[in-house]
Structures are given as structure tokens and as C-alpha cells.
């Protein structure tokens, strides 16, 4: 069945007069094949009418058909259509061209598929990297939470001790800084300051026992913290008046409402 139509197309191509002989040969072969076909067809019709309605399982049918076709293909030997070289040349050319175009299509198709797959691969890789990062972060968080959850009393104590130490360090550093700052910017008034001799003499006597600003502040804070029911500190000559005035005016200390010689540290919230 297969050779008949393809030979027809060849006959259309071989229109050169020198190929008349080849055409005749081909026609003969066509007739032969067609006769064979008719015979087979008649056999099929007979077989059909005899064993009709053998509609058993389709799969069985298929199996039988496939195995018989397989046997046929195994028996069949490849043979040339005809020995005429011109016919073969024409057929070969056409076949090869068709094959060429089909293979080109296959090539471009598989290239496109490859590119698409590569894109997919890249995308999946970036996705995977992101997920890995997320996984790591989550794992770290889990371990941290687990550690926190595993707190026994001992570790609570340790935490507390640690925190207390930190705070103490912070406190001492703050105090240091405060005293440094006060010593630098608010020194005790210089006994050899400017002024007339008279003033100097008068001041000198009174300033022998002046206490520094840090001392003043220390006294105020200690009074407030230790005896909070009576946070007032009495100002006397050891307090240099400008400093007390500065504290009062800046709102760091306030006077006692009744006694003007007492000051206390201002409330801070």
C-alpha cells in the first residue's frame, strides 16, 4: 500500500522525455503492487465476513495486531523501489530535503526547550537559595528559643547576676564621666582669681573650705536616697554661692519652702 502513492508523486516529477522508459517500469511495478493489494483486500473481506463480531477485548486485539505487525517488520527486507538511477536520484533528493527541513525544525524545537529548561533551572536555584536562607534563620531562632525555654532556676540566677553586674558597670562608668565632666567644667574657684587685693583677702578666708560641685551633688543625692523623708541639705559657707544659684536656677535643686538655707534635689521622673 505504501509504495503506490509515493510512486505517483515520482511520476509527476519525471516529466523528461528520456525518462519514459523509467516511467514505464514504474507503472508496471505500480500495477503489480495494486494487484497484490486487491488480492489482500479480497482475503480481508472474506476473513471479515467469516469471523465477524469478534469484538473481544480491545487490548487483546491491539496486542495481536502489534505482534503481527512486529513480525511483518522483522521479516521484511528493505528493497529499492527501482533500479533506475534517475528515479532514485530524484526520490533521494526530495527525501533528503524533507529530512533536512524536519531535522532543522527538531533542532530549533529542542533548542527552545533547552533554553526554557535552563531558565526554569535558574529560577529554581534562586528559589532554593532563598529557602535555604530562610531555613537557616528559622533554625537559629529555634535554637535560641529552645535555649531560652530551657531556663532553670540556676540560669535565671545567672542571668540576674549578669544583669546586675552590667548595670553596676554602667553606673560606675556614668559616675566617672560625671565627675570628670564636673571637674573639667566646674572647678573650684581659683583662690588666685582676678579682683582687688581686698576682695581677694576677704574671699580667701571664706574659700578655704569650699567643696566642689561634685561634692555638693553627691551630698544632695545621698541625702535624697538615704533619708528620703528628709531630703534637705543645709547650705553653709562651704557651698560656693554661685554654684548653688546655678543648681537652683537650672531646676536641679529647689529650696525648702520655709527655710531658705535648705535645698534638696529636684524630683525627676
Amino acid at each position, binding site marked *: 500500500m505504501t509504495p503506490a*502513492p509515493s510512486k505517483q508523486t515520482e511520476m509527476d516529477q519525471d516529466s523528461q522525455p528520456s525518462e519514459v522508459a523509467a516511467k514505464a517500469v514504474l507503472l508496471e511495478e505500480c500495477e503489480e503492487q495494486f494487484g497484490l493489494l486487491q488480492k489482500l483486500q479480497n482475503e480481508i473481506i472474506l476473513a471479515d465476513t467469516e469471523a465477524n463480531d469478534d*469484538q473481544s477485548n480491545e487490548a487483546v*486485539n491491539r496486542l495481536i495486531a502489534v505482534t503481527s505487525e512486529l513480525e511483518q*517488520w522483522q521479516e521484511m527486507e528493505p528493497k529499492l523501489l527501482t533500479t533506475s538511477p534517475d528515479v532514485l536520484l530524484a526520490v533521494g533528493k526530495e527525501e533528503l530535503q524533507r529530512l533536512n527541513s524536519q531535522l532543522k525544525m527538531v533542532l530549533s524545537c529542542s533548542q527552545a526547550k533547552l533554553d526554557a529548561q535552563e531558565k526554569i533551572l535558574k529560577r529554581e536555584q534562586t528559589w532554593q537559595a532563598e529557602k535555604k536562607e530562610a531555613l537557616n534563620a528559622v533554625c537559629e531562632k529555634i535554637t535560641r528559643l529552645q535555649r531560652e525555654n530551657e531556663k532553670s532556676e540556676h540560669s535565671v540566677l545567672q542571668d540576674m547576676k549578669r544583669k546586675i553586674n552590667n548595670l553596676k558597670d554602667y553606673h560606675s562608668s556614668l559616675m566617672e564621666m560625671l565627675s570628670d565632666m564636673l571637674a573639667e567644667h566646674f572647678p573650684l574657684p581659683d583662690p588666685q582669681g582676678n579682683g582687688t587685693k581686698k576682695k581677694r583677702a576677704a574671699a580667701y578666708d571664706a574659700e578655704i573650705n569650699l567643696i566642689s560641685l561634685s561634692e555638693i551633688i553627691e551630698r544632695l543625692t545621698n541625702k535624697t536616697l538615704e533619708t528620703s523623708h528628709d531630703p534637705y541639705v543645709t547650705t553653709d559657707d562651704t557651698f560656693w554661692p554661685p554654684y548653688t544659684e546655678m543648681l537652683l536656677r537650672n531646676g536641679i535643686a529647689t529650696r525648702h519652702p520655709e527655710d531658705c538655707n535648705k535645698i534638696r534635689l529636684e524630683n525627676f521622673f
Partner: protein
Amino acid sequence: MALLTPYSKVPELNTATVLLVENEEELQSKLANAIVQYEKHFNVNVRLARKLPLPVENKETRPRIDLIVFIVNLLSERSLQSVESSLAHLHSDCFLGKVCFLVTDARCGSHTQERLVSVRKLAASHQCPVLCAEHRTAEGVNAAAVRLLNILKVTAGMSPIATTALYLSSLTRCSVTSDLDED
């Protein structure tokens, strides 16, 4: 019962015949025109029918049919039912590569998905290929016509490389995967 048998008639020279069976008769004529336009190397006879069994009057004059295409419109329930009833009128030898299913409107909604699944199961049980076509545009019709022509060439024996209809249908048959089965 008169069954449509595949091999009861002698094939004609350089001719292939395809039978398009469609209940709604929407796509048939467009597809037929496209097929006939596309093929230049051999004659193509396109016969149209609404359902099987084919009318008895034409039995003698009808040529041997090489490919039977069942067109199923997934938007209507009756389309699938008529195809199922027509399948009973086919000789079981036809399913060895001479039957193909063409579905349209496969993307238009949820009912179509269920019907597509049932069409695929039907095709898988008979081991036939399923093509999806888009029938509203000319390009879709042309593309479907080209695909059908490829299958037709093989089933009519026009393919010179050793491809037979049975072989092609084994390659292209619709397979229903297991997760479809589990739906």
C-alpha cells in the same frame, strides 16, 4: 448492526479520506475547508457527519475511510454523549490507530475541565490520541487542520518512513496519569 469497518474497501490511489463527526456542526466545515486548502500533494476527501451510524444509502459509494475524527465541544454535555453513543457503531479494529479525538473550548471554565478529564479517560481506554483545538480564530483552525493532516498522512499510508497507523497511535495515544485517576 452495520459497523464501520476499517479495511472493507480498497483504498484509492493518492487519496486519503477523513471523516469528521461532530454533533454541533460548528467546526466541521471550517476544518474541512482548511484541510482541503492545505494539502496540495494528494487528494483529500473530507466527509462530514453528525453521528454514527452513517446512513446506509451511501454505503456503496463511500470510499474507504482512513481517519475518523470525533470533535467534542467541551461546553455542551450532549456533544460528549453523542460521541459516546457513536463509538458503539465502530468496529473494534478501527481503534487500532484510525480514530482520533479533537476537543475544543478546553480552557473555558470548570465544567470543561471535568469533561476534558472524561474525554481523556475515554480516549485512554481506546488508546487514541486527543488533540486540543481552538476554533474561534483562523489560526487555530489552520493549526488543527495541519495536525489532522499529519495524522491522516500516516493512517492513509502516505508516510514513506516506516510509520504505520498502529505505531503512531501507540506513540500519541492519550494517557491518563494517576493523579487524574485519583480525582
